[in-house]
C-alpha cells in the first residue's frame, strides 16, 4: 500500500519517464477540457445522449480500424478513427431521435436501447479484430475501460490538440451556448440555429470522446464530462466561473486517476479517474460554501435558532399579558407548559436570549429587557395580524389560528407586515402601531414545538 502510494506520488510529482509524463499531462488536460464541455452538456440536459454517443464511438473506431486495414492505411491514425467515430456517434443520435418518434418508445428507453446495442456491436467487432493477424491492433482492447499506461506520445499529443480545440470553440461560442442551454426556444426565435449549436456541442463531445477512448475508455468517459460539471455547480452561480472550476476538478481528477492507474498496472484508467472525480464531487457537495450540504445545515441551524428566539420572546410577552403584569418574572415551568417544550430546550433558549440581551434573570425567573420587550411586541403584533388575516381571508378556525400562523410568521419581512396592515385596515381591532388583542383565547398551552 505504502509502495503504491509512493509510486502514485512519484507520478503525480512528474518524477517519471518522459513518455509517462507526457501521457499523464495530456490526460489531465483532457479532464479539464471535458469538465468545461460537460458544463454545457449538463445544463443542456444531454448527459445521457452524450453517454450513448461515447458508447457508439467504440464500434465507430472498430469500423474505422478495419477499413484502414483493408485499405492498407495507418490503422491508428486519428484522421481515420475520428471521422468513423463521429459518424457512429451521429448515427446513434439519429437512432435515438428516430426511436423517440415511435408512439410507444420514450426518450430514456430509446437512449438505453441505442447505447447498449451500439456498445454490443463495438465489443463484438473488438473481439473480431483481436482474432485478426494484424500488428496495429495492440491496445484496442483498452478502449472499453481505458489504459493510460499503454498510450503513446502521439496519443498524448492528439489529446492536447483536441482539448485545445474544444476550449477555443467554447470560448468563441460561450454566449451562444449559454443561450442554447438556458432557453433554446428564445435562441431559435432570434435566429440562432439550435441544430447548429447542438451540433457544435455534440461535436466537441465526440472529439474529446474519441481522443480519450484509449485513456479513459468508452464505458466511463461520460463521467469525466458530467461529474466535474455537477461538482462545480455547488461552488458558484456564475456560468463562466462554473466552467473554470469544472476544468480544475476534471483536470485534477483525470491526472491523479491516470497516475494511480499508471502506478498500479492492473487498475484500468477509466475507473481510477471516475473514482477521483467522484471523490471531488462528494467533497464539493459537502463543503461548498454556497450550495454545499454543510453550508445548508449551518443555515438551517441558524434559522432554527432565530425561530426559537421568536417563539421564546412571544411566549414570554403573552405570559405577561395573561398574568396582567409585563414585568412579572416568568419561570421555566410556565414556558414549558405554554409551548410543550422540553425543559432543557427552554433553558438553552433562555441562556442564549440572556447572552443576546433579550431577557435577564430575576430570582428564579426571567423578565424581558426593554430591548427584548420591543422585539417581542413586534413579533406578537405580526403574529396577530397574520391570525386576523387567516381568520378573515382563509377561513381558518379559531382553535387552529395560532398553529397556522406559527408555520409562516417567521417568513414575514417588514414589507409583508405592512401589506398585512393595509389589507386589514377596515377591521376594528387593527389600528396602526397598536397591539391588537389576540383573536383567540390565550390559553396556558398552545402552539407546537
Amino acid at each position, binding site marked *: 500500500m505504502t509502495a503504491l502510494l509512493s509510486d502514485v506520488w512519484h507520478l503525480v510529482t512528474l518524477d517519471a519517464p518522459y513518455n509517462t509524463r507526457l501521457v499523464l499531462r495530456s490526460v489531465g488536460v483532457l479532464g479539464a477540457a471535458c469538465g468545461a464541455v460537460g458544463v454545457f452538456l449538463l445544463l443542456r440536459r444531454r448527459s445521457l445522449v452524450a453517454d450513448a454517443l461515447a458508447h457508439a464511438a467504440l464500434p465507430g473506431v472498430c469500423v474505422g480500424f478495419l477499413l484502414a486495414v483493408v485499405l492498407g492505411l495507418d490503422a491508428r491514425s486519428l484522421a481515420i478513427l475520428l471521422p468513423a467515430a463521429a459518424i457512429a456517434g451521429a448515427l446513434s443520435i439519429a437512432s435515438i431521435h428516430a426511436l423517440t418518434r415511435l408512439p410507444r418508445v420514450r426518450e430514456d428507453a430509446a437512449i438505453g436501447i441505442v447505447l447498449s446495442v451500439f456498445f454490443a456491436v463495438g465489443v463484438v467487432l473488438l473481439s473480431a479484430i483481436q482474432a485478426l493477424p494484424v500488428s496495429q491492433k495492440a491496445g484496442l482492447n483498452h478502449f472499453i475501460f481505458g489504459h493510460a499506461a499503454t498510450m503513446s506520445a502521439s496519443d498524448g499529443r492528439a489529446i492536447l490538440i483536441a482539448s485545445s480545440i474544444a476550449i477555443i470553440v467554447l470560448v468563441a461560442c460561450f454566449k*451562444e451556448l*449559454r443561450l442554447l442551454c*438556458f*432557453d433554446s*426556444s428564445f435562441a431559435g*426565435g432570434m435566429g*440562432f440555429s439550435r441544430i447548429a449549436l447542438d451540433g457544435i456541442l455534440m461535436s466537441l463531445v465526440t472529439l474529446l470522446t474519441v481522443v480519450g477512448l484509449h485513456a479513459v475508455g468508452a464505458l466511463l468517459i461520460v463521467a469525466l464530462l458530467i461529474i466535474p460539471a455537477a461538482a462545480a455547480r455547488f461552488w458558484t452561480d456564475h456560468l463562466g466561473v462554473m466552467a473554470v472550476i469544472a476544468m480544475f476538478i476534471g483536470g485534477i481528477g483525470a491526472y491523479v486517476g491516470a497516475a494511480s492507474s499508471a502506478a498500479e498496472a492492473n487498475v484500468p484508467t477509466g475507473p481510477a479517474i471516475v473514482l477521483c472525480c467522484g471523490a471531488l464531487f462528494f467533497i464539493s457537495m459537502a463543503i461548498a460554501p454556497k450550495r454545499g450540504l454543510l453550508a445548508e445545515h449551518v443555515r438551517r441551524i441558524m434559522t432554527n435558532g432565530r425561530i426559537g428566539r421568536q417563539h421564546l420572546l412571544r411566549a414570554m410577552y403573552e405570559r405577561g399579558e395573561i398574568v396582567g403584569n409585563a414585568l412579572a418574572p416568568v419561570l421555566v415551568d410556565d414556558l414549558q407548559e405554554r409551548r410543550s417544550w422540553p425543559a432543557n430546550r427552554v433553558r438553552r433558549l433562555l441562556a442564549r436570549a440572556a447572552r443576546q440581551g433579550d431577557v435577564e434573570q430575576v430570582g428564579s425567573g426571567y423578565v424581558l429587557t426593554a430591548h427584548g420587550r420591543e422585539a417581542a411586541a413586534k413579533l406578537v403584533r405580526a403574529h396577530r395580524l397574520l391570525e386576523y388575516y387567516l381568520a378573515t381571508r382563509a377561513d381558518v378556525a379559531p382553535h387552529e389560528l395560532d398553529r397556522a400562523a406559527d408555520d409562516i410568521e417567521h417568513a414575514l419581512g417588514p414589507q409583508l407586515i405592512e401589506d398585512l396592515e393595509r389589507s386589514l385596515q377596515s377591521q376594528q381591532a387593527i389600528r396602526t402601531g397598536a397591539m391588537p388583542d389576540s383573536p383567540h383565547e390565550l390559553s396556558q398551552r398552545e402552539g407546537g414545538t
Partner: protein
Amino acid sequence: MTHTAAHIAASLNGERKSPSVVPLALRDVTVVYQRKPVLWDIDYETPPDALVGIVGPNGAGKSTLIKAALGLVPLASGHVEIFGRPTREQRRRIGYVPQRESVDWEFPASALDVVVMGRYGRIGWFRRISRAHRDAAMACLDQVGMAEFANRQIGQLSGGQQQRVFLARALAQEADLYLMDEPFAGVDAATERTIIEILRRLRDSGRTCLVVHHDLNTVRDYFDSLLLLNMRVVASGPTAHVLTDENLRRTYGGRLTLLEKATTAMAAGGVPRE
C-alpha cells in the same frame, strides 16, 4: 447612458413608428404534433399597433401559434409573414417572451445575464458583449423596475420578478412585434400592473403585442383586439365585438373531437370501411 439605452427609453415613451403592413399574418397554417393536429387551417392577421390577446382553453394551440409565428415549429401547411416578409428575414423585428416554466431557473445566470440575451441577435455570432449592449440591457431592467436585482441569481427571484426579467429581455430585443406567452401567469398584482403599463406604452409607441392570456376577467380591460382560438380561429377582431358569450361558449365549449379523430385515423392510414 449610451445611445441604445437612451433609444430604448425614448421609444418606450411614445416615439411613434408608422405602421404600414400587417405585423403578423398567418395564412392557412396547420401544425401537427405526433400525428395530431394542434392548429388547423389558421388564417389570421393582427391589426397594426394594437394590444392583441390570444384566448382559448388549455391545449387550444395558443403557444404553438406563437411558436409557429417564430418559426420554431414546422408547419404542415401554410406560411407566416412578419411585416409582409418571411419570419427568417424579420428576426430582428420580433421580441419573444416564452412561458416562464419553459426554462430552468436554477440556471447559473444573473438577471442581467438573462436580459443581455435579448441583445444577442444584434451582437451576432462569436462577438463579445460590449459595454453598450450591457448598458442597454440595464436600461431594460430599469424599465421593469428590476435594476436593483441585476446581479441576483435568477433562481432567487420571485415568480413575478422572473416574469419581469423575461419582459426586460424582450424589451432588449427592441422589436416592432412582441409575442408573449402568458406573461401574466402566476404574477403578483404589482407585477401585473407593471407589465400591462409597459405593454400599453409599447402599443402607444406603434408596436404590436400579441399576448396569450388566461384571465377572462381582465381581457376586456387589457386588449384592443382578440383572437379566440381552439385549434382553429373561433373569432377575431376588436375586443368589444368578439368578446360575446356565444363566442366564448364556442371557444371553451368542447373540443373539436370529430376533426381530431378523423385526422388521427387518416395519419394512421386507416380509412374506415363502409
